[in-house]
């Protein structure tokens, strides 16, 4: 990104952020006070973008705790926990202006068991205009991903051990799986974060000689959508669970001994697949 563009974004972000704060901090209070007849309600409508995170298995919404999914390796699986970070969400306007969501430091935590995390409201900070693509970081980039950033649950519980690179899991997908024809399903921890390089390929934390940033950026060209002053737009960001397993690197649960935090090869292959796990669509209206 060029310097001039950066400044422009920051200045516009500043103005927009002030508007957001005024509207988010002020309006609810004014409305609550209105009930007691103390002040009158404000009249201006905020421009709002709501991102809805939709976790899918191919064409159907993910249902947790249900052993009904199958990947290309012929493994049945069920997902019990799905938690991940999306950050640096950026809207690209057709005139070259980009808008970066700053809510929550630009980081959003998604937890399939916590319905409120499936929505991220970008308040009134979105500048009106026509946008033609969206980009984001899956996980947290190196600058954002430092330990003790989150002290409170649930984000806190995504912490990634210091010895393994520190910061936070990009994603925790806990599942159990079984081969066709077998009765017993075994757990698998599909966890992504900073990878390690081990001296002599011996998986021993004392032989770690380097770390690998596994976060990746996703850019989703989309049919143009516009947002005007005072409008509420819904952007649906879908993640297809099966894409993590069925991409160019077919993922075989049996190959990785049910874990991957200390297996950079597994995380690398998973991330190559994961880059194709996302899609976006826009709709009018709220939730």
């Amino acid at each position, binding site marked *: 990104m060029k310097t001039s563009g*950066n400044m422009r974004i*920051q200045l516009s*972000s*500043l103005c927009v*952020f*002030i508007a*957001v*704060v*005024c509207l988010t*901090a*002020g309006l609810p*209070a004014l409305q*609550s*006070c209105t009930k*007691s007849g*103390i*002040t009158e309600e404000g009249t201006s409508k905020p421009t709002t973008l709501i991102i809805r995170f939709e976790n899918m298995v191919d064409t159907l919404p993910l249902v947790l*705790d249900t052993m009904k999914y199958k990947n290309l390796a012929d493994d049945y699986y069920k997902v*019990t*926990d799905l938690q991940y970070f999306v950050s640096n969400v950026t809207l690209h306007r057709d005139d070259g202006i980009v808008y970066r969501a*700053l809510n929550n*430091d630009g980081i959003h935590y998604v937890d399939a068991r916590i319905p409120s995390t499936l929505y991220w409201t970008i308040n009134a900070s979105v500048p009106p205009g026509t946008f033609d693509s969206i980009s984001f970081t899956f996980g947290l980039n190196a*600058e954002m991903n*430092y*330990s*003790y*950033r989150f*002290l*409170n*649950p649930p984000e*806190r*519980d995504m*912490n*990634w*051990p*210091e*010895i*393994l690179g520190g910061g*936070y899991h990009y994603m925790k997908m*806990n*599942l*159990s799986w079984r081969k066709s024809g077998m009765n*017993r*399903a*075994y*757990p*698998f*921890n599909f*966890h992504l974060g900073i990878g390690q390089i081990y001296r002599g390929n011996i*998986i021993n*934390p*004392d032989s770690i000689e380097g770390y690998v940033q596994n976060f990746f950026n996703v850019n989703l060209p989309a049919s143009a959508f516009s947002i005007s002053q005072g409008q509420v737009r819904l952007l649906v960001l879908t993640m297809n669970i099966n894409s993590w397993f069925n991409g160019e690197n077919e993922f075989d649960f049996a190959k990785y*001994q*049910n*874990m991957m*935090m*200390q297996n950079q090869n597994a995380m690398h292959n998973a991330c190559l697949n994961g880059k194709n796990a996302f899609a976006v669509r826009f709709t009018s209206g709220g939730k």
Partner: protein
Amino acid sequence: MKIERKALFEKSFPVSSYPIIQLSSILQLAFLLIISASCTKSSQDTTTSKATPYVIRIPKYFPTELNIPADNPMTVEGVELGRYLFYDGRISGRTEPDSLMSCSTCHVQAHSFVCGIENPRFQGGHPRGLTGILTPHFMLPMINLVWVTNGYLWNGSLSPANPLQAKRRLEDMCWMAIVAPHEISGDTSRSRALIQGIEGYPELFEKAFGSKTVTVKNMGRAIAQFVRTLISANSKFDRFLEGKAQLSEKERKGYVLFMTETGGDCFHCHGGEGNPLFTTNLFYNNGLDSVFVDPLDRYGFTHNSMDVGAYVAPTLRNAAYTAPYMHDGRFKSLEEVIDFYSSGLVWSPSISTLMHHVSTRGVQLTPSQKSDLKDFILTLTDSSFVTNSEFSRPPRLPGEK
């Protein structure tokens, strides 16, 4: 603490965006002032006592969000009263020496507020009520409960999700303990009346809650306030995190085992440097059994089949003092616990998916690794917690000569 939190705050934002945050903070503050000015009337309505606010000091790296209900703010007077009640056997509503029972009868400070495996009154560390009935579960340590946000007790049923409104909060433990057959097996009216009649208590209630009238509700509020002060954050590992202590080589090795998937893989459920509570306070079927008969497991509360055999992961802080271990006290020592996770896991359909080592019956530690892991767990020992005079029985209870 203010300085530490500010440092963390500054670290959270790139330099370029920091002025924006400052400006937004100013604006938010301005709005808060407007709101508080315009809504003064309703604020005054909620004021019930002139008690002195009690400020909990949040240790470094601990969560900043505390579970303190809005209708029971911490006060110096409330905590003081709660401490008296916590240790006063007359809360049982009885006065005969052999019929007294208080929270502290079972919750013993020297054992991080479990009764202790060597307790002469409770064989094997399994408490029983005044009438001799055993409690359904063994005890959970009473440490850092002010940070528990998703339910108390082994199955987390004391939570806002409980359909019974009277069984949702730490405050509710008071009446629950008084009437439970396996605890005090008493009568709240009798307990309340006895406390009301003890010289000194009405004045303490007035200081804490603005009225000399003793109520069970205020008894519960006071005890909950005291319990929320029971904070442990002064172990060797805490000092290590702050750069004030060094781990021995064995402790360091144990720490690495604790924090790695290919080691003991303890951190996913029990926290670690990124979660110094040393528990997520979440619920797991950790592979103890394949057949489940306890009606008070997590499933008994949620009725989710994935919660069969699941219980909260207890904090490992002061684990040295809290034997026996597990909800049923089946392990008498830390060695037995480590042996179990190393090679004793049992598969069941509802086993937590975090227990992925079940395919090999456990994490398969060598004897020296087990020893290292235990040494690390012992660095979580906070002896100052079990000797802190602020948590101890007051020298004299109200009405005592």
